[in-house]
């Protein structure tokens, strides 16, 4: 389908025309994350990126696998997912979804993730104001990358340009055809220009060529100890990474009902790999940091052919002790030569 556009003031009408659960970035506490909204809610998409990535919708931090009555054995699976629209997803985070899709669908399908993923239309917003630690362009993305998106919006000032990318995207435009207008060539050109400008603003870079092999070469290198030593083993870098999907499964009771649920977990936690015997194959922050970086840039790449990092920069922005994945990669590249 062709490119469309809509006046910002009419964006609410666009949303109203969609008979779906809407999710958009809103402030919860002090930070932005994707939460359910109604078409009437005020939308403010003028931000660099959300603190909590949209994975929280497709792969919620806590997700019930099934419920049961305590003491009984009948399992109640959750209801089917409703149709959802994720609004204002940044291209890097959308690419992360495309990456995570591989994981959740290899060999076994993950019904919970897939159930949501399939019912979700991802509406992206081209990034106009990358932050200092954004490096999407180094890992195969860009401020207007479309991978993982169904529809891309570009903010042209007065209007949003809508660029449908998939059938789901087309459907949205169809459903809301009434309120949309055809976009012009000039609009498209203006968007293209904005996209390029944004890409030009990205300052941090890394050369990922051969990094997969280099990482394995440097398995025992002292850089791991040196660069991880300050790590606190907090889960920040992983919990908020859009491509991190580790989880734990736990049973919890609420009143007389019990449920088995999965919750986000992090490979940076010491007890993540701790065996019941007390043995821990990754006993210190050194092994854990190495695993995090290797997983993204080597293991995942070996297994799925893609680097599992989209360059959103969250882990760098939010690490309280300035453990900087780009810095680590730079060291790796330097040492491997």
């Amino acid at each position: 389908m062709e490119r469309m556009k809509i006046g910002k003031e009419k964006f609410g009408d666009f949303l109203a025309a969609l008979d779906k659960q809407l999710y958009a970035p809103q402030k919860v506490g002090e930070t932005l994350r994707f939460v359910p909204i109604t078409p009437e809610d005020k939308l403010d998409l003028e931000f660099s990126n959300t603190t909590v990535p949209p994975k929280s919708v497709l792969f919620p931090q806590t997700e019930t696998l099934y419920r049961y009555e305590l003491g009984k054995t009948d399992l109640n699976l959750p209801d089917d997912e409703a149709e959802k629209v994720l609004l204002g997803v940044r291209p890097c985070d959308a690419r992360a979804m495309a990456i995570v899709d591989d994981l959740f669908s290899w060999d076994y399908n993950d019904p919970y993730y897939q159930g949501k993923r399939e019912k979700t239309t991802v509406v992206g917003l081209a990034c106009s104001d990358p932050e200092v630690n954004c490096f999407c362009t180094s890992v195969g993305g860009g401020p207007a990358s479309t991978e993982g998106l169904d529809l891309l919006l570009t903010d042209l000032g007065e209007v949003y340009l809508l660029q449908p990318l998939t059938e789901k995207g087309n459907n949205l435009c169809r459903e809301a055809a009434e309120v949309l207008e055809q976009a012009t060539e000039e609009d498209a050109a203006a968007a293209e220009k904005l996209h390029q400008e944004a890409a030009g603003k990205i300052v941090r870079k890394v050369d990922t060529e051969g990094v997969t092999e280099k990482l394995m070469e440097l398995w025992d290198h002292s850089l791991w100890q040196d660069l991880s030593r300050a790590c606190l083993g907090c889960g920040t870098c992983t919990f908020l990474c859009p491509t991190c999907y580790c989880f734990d499964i736990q049973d919890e009771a609420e009143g007389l009902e019990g449920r088995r649920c999965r919750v986000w977990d992090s490979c940076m936690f010491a007890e993540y790999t701790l065996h019941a015997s007390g043995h821990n194959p990754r006993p210190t922050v050194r092994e854990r940091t190495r695993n995090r970086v290797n997983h993204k840039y080597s293991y995942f790449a070996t297994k799925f052919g893609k680097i599992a990092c989209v360059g959103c920069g969250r882990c760098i922005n939010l690490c309280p002790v300035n453990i900087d994945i780009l810095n680590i990669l730079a060291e790796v590249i330097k040492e491997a030569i």
Partner: protein
Amino acid sequence: MNNKPKIGVYVCHCGINISHTVDVEAVAEFASQLPNVRVAREYSYMCSDPGQALIREDIKNEGLNRVVVASCSPRMHELTFRKTLAEAGLNPYYLEMANIREHCSWVHGDREKATAKAKRLVAAAAVKARLLEPLQEKEVDVEPASLIIGAGIAGIQAALDIAEAGFKVYLVEKTPSVGGRMSQLDKTFPTLDCSACILTPKMVDVASHPNIELLTYSQVEDVSGYVGNFDVKVRKKARYVDMDKCTGCGVCAQECRLTGRIPSEFDEGMGKRAAIYLPFPQAVPAKYTIDPERCLMLTRGKCGKSPKCVDACGTGAINFEQEDEIVEFKVGSIIVATGFDVFDASRKPEYGYNDYENVITGLELERLVSASGPTGGDILIGKGDDAYVPKDIAFIKCVGSRDKSVGNEYCSRVCCMYTAKLAHLLTEKIPDANVRVYYMDVRAFGKGFEEFYDRVRREGVRYIRGNPSEVFKRGDKLVVKAENTLTSTPVEDEVDLVVLAVGLEPRRDAREIIDILRLSQSGDRFYMEAHPKLAPVDTATDGVFLAGCAQGPKDIPDTVAQAKGAASSALVLLSSGKVKVQAQVSHINEDTCRGCGYCVEICPYSAIELVTVNQFGHEALVARVNDALCKGCGACVAGCFSGSAQQKSFMDGQILPQIAALGVMR
């Protein structure tokens, strides 16, 4: 070993006491549905023999391994049912009770609601029962000996009682002689017995009793272990006089270069002694001691050409090479009878104690009136030719007692009466004396006290109600400035002697014993008893008892009474030969303990200590509980952030499910 919990629930009707408000059948039926419940029954009297038999049979036949009894308060029958379990071969701590009588049927009228509550209580008991662990009740042997610290009248009395009962006593006295404060007194109120006359025989008894090992001039250095099994280390200080050789003749003291130059402690500094000395004539043991802080030989290494004492001593008892000796022994119980110090009157500078020689304390006056005192019993103030007999004499009471400004809020209990006694003795010794007593209140509470007080007043001693604000010198006289609060008139009383009725304070070195025995102090800084009413001779440390003024001010009869109490408490332990230790004690998971020591600080019984352990090659501090000391309060558990301290039968893992059961059951 995990065994699958199989719970039996027994709901008691208690005649109709429970069943008239609680639908016991419904409760039992409900209980039978609870997880892990194998049988649930109701019965008219669970505590009766047939009721208990029911439980025992089910344990045998149904293979029950946990029991819930829903009946009266566990405070009533927990022990009964524990025994029932034990009789059936089950660990008695696999019992949990639900109190559906005192806490339910007796306090509620609404049958429906009461039944619902009973169900909740049973459910909570059942989830806890599920998680109970078997506990062992341990018994430890008691070493048949006692340590008594302090040989004042309290320590002496307790020692004699215990020794008489046939047990070994180690009586440790810090000073060279037994006797304590009482030996300093002249006569004792209210009967005016001569102190020495009633005390000396006991002192001698103590020294000669075959069961008593007297360790004078000695100090307890360390006590470890726990009730029944204390290991004691005592330092016998060097006297520099061979106890076996010394005959107590005293020529050494006469010859000593420092004779008459050193203030005598016994005479409160008013008399003088030599560097080698006997504290007082009736001292026991009657052996001389060299004061290492004064003796020229010991302080400077030289005493003239040769030490005169050595030259004088016919038996060659003096030995400057003598060294402190450490004695170690084991005891089953300990009595602390370290007594008191008198209030230091210079802390009330307004009374001029430091400034005027004719301002003295009650204890000094005791020495003055004593026939064995520095003046041979004459009331003489001042030295040599200037000495005079005072005529106008004022007592000021409550000096250092009932006085927030010096930190002593308590009443010293003896000053009122010793003032009356001393006033009486003064009027006896100085017939024309004019004695008045400034007081806030007169507390004549003991047997014969009021009568004695009355007698003294009738003898002409004037009691003036008012707390003097100042004592100062005007010409030859001292002026006591006060306000007579009964007449609201200011008074400026000119006198020759002011006697300060100083109060009693904890020994200045009380801390030593606190640290050694891990005792606590009450607000008044005296050693704290386990319970002010019901355990006034016990302490928080099992097997350690208090006697006499160490626990708080008291007179001789009370001191002796408490000493006898402490002795009999100690004897209970010694004669039974065994002590049971708590089973529901605290336990620390050393893998998770972070060694912060919170529990150590918290434990009122000093049952926990930090120990260094090796964790994979690294040293780590962890807490460890001594089961024999822990009383099972659980205060440490709630104070442990890491959840490492857990009290058996009251573990977090057992209480949280109880909370859930009660919360969820609505």
